[in-house]
């Protein structure tokens, strides 16, 4: 198993009649020369940090290191707890958690890059919200993180998970696909459904540029984490309903690579294009770094 394609993962899981996470756990324990218990214990550490990073982000009065952002997660949480959300408590909780982890990151708090710091809110928000809603055991979520990782490895191999190489689609897109895949597995979907969820999630965010104001992981990253978890639920819901992606996951990943390659450098984390280049983006930049930029 080389994580060369989503198709390979699906075929192997079908052949062995197991979950993708089962395959990945067995293979990774072997490759890292540790027992499955040790491997799971290590992933549990990541899971615990994810939980802590949600809690940390819900504090009132949070302000990022640069001073540009903070407090959005608290506001969203207030709206959810006050019953003021359009899409109900579950969805509002997911958005609030994504904002919380992302804001914890911007405040130099501890997070788990998943796959990157810029997109760190999506995977925990998706899985922790589902876990709470359905009273799932921690072990289920820890195992699902391996399915998410496997999808991430395939994307990293065949396209990119770095905004500087592939734009935001490579970060929040990859995170959405990883989260969607994990959600489908936890909800009892088939391995084909996992693959379609991955494909749909990336398709929905294909072409999204990385244009951070002042080059900092804040504007628009925090809100794109909220959008990313929404996208993960869209993809998972469609796939679990039996809706298939017309374009297979591996071809979607290939397309993401091609789109990333053809994207202008100004739109790949250099803070020279998109939102970073707007009058307000430039004004905020000079607020942080002074006038020289």
């Amino acid at each position, binding site marked *: 198993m080389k*994580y060369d394609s989503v198709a390979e993962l699906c075929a192997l899981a079908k052949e062995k009649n197991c979950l993708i996470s089962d395959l*990945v756990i067995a293979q*990774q324990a072997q*490759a*890292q*020369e540790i027992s499955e218990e040790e491997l799971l214990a*290590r*992933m549990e*550490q*990541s899971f615990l*940090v994810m939980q802590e990073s949600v809690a940390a982000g819900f504090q009132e009065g949070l302000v*990022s*290191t*640069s001073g540009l952002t903070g407090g959005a997660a608290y506001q969203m949480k207030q709206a959810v707890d006050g019953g003021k959300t359009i899409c109900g408590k579950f969805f509002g909780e997911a958005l609030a958690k994504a904002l919380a982890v992302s804001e*914890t*990151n*911007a*405040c*130099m*708090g*501890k*997070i*788990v*890059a*998943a*796959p*990157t*710091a*810029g997109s*760190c809110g999506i*995977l925990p928000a998706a899985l922790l919200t589902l876990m709470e809603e359905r009273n799932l055991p921690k072990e289920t979520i820890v195992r699902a*993180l*391996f399915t*998410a*990782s*496997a999808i*991430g*490895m395939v994307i*990293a*191999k065949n396209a990119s*998970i*770095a905004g*500087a*190489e592939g734009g935001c689609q490579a970060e929040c897109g990859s995170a959405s696909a*990883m989260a969607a895949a994990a959600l489908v597995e936890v909800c009892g979907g088939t391995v084909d459904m996992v693959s379609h969820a991955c494909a749909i999630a990336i398709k929905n965010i294909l072409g999204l540029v990385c244009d951070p104001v*002042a*080059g*900092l*992981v*804040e504007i628009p990253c925090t809100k794109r984490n909220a959008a990313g978890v929404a996208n993960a639920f869209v993809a998972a819901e469609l796939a679990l309903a039996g809706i298939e992606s017309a374009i297979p996951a591996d071809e979607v990943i290939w397309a993401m690579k091609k789109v990333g390659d053809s994207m202008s450098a100004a739109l790949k984390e250099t803070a020279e294009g998109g939102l970073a280049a707007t009058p307000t983006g430039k004004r905020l930049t000079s607020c*942080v*770094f002074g006038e020289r*930029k």
Partner: protein
Amino acid sequence: MDVFDIVGPIMVGPSSSHTAGAARIGKFALTILGQPVQKAEIYFSGSFAKTYKGHGTDKAIIGGLLGMDTDDTRIRTSLELAKENGLEFSFHETEIENAHPNTVLLRLTGIEGKTVAVQGASVGGGNILITKIDDTEVSITGKATTLIVPHKDVPGMISDVTNILARRGVNIGRFELKRSQKGGTAVMIIEVDGTVDAEVNDLIARFPNVLDSTVIAAI
């Protein structure tokens, strides 16, 4: 690449390249110095020079120099901690030619007077590449346990060192030898599987023509 490269690293934000990678370069440099840092001159190049304040790259580098890992929340207050610990530091913006955009050069002096200059780049996702140690160009990712052995450029050195590793059952994954000039100082950079205990390092350091030996644990 393994699952923890994707779901991970566990790190203090906000940026895997500008914060986590920077802390790793700092800690790597500290290990090479081999003693607590008394004075650090930090030269930021490229993107690091432009954005180090907003990303906390300065705090991350100092945190690393104080021995902190990427997930140590004390990184947030590392500048204050450094002052309390008597670590004297200064930041400079520079442009290192032909270097990766996220490059930093650290000129360090240890409390016992040893000095070293380490140049490294943060190449994405918290991964690093150490590109220069003093005047020797190197290429170290820190992904595997790495032995750095500066020695006199005389015959038999490679066999002496690798023999010790062989006898201890240590498998070499990558071997690189660099020298500035014939008969001068050469450096072996050896990446191995698993870990290496301190005793092996001591045995290597005991060879008369070995100038120093440092084992750096995989990150």
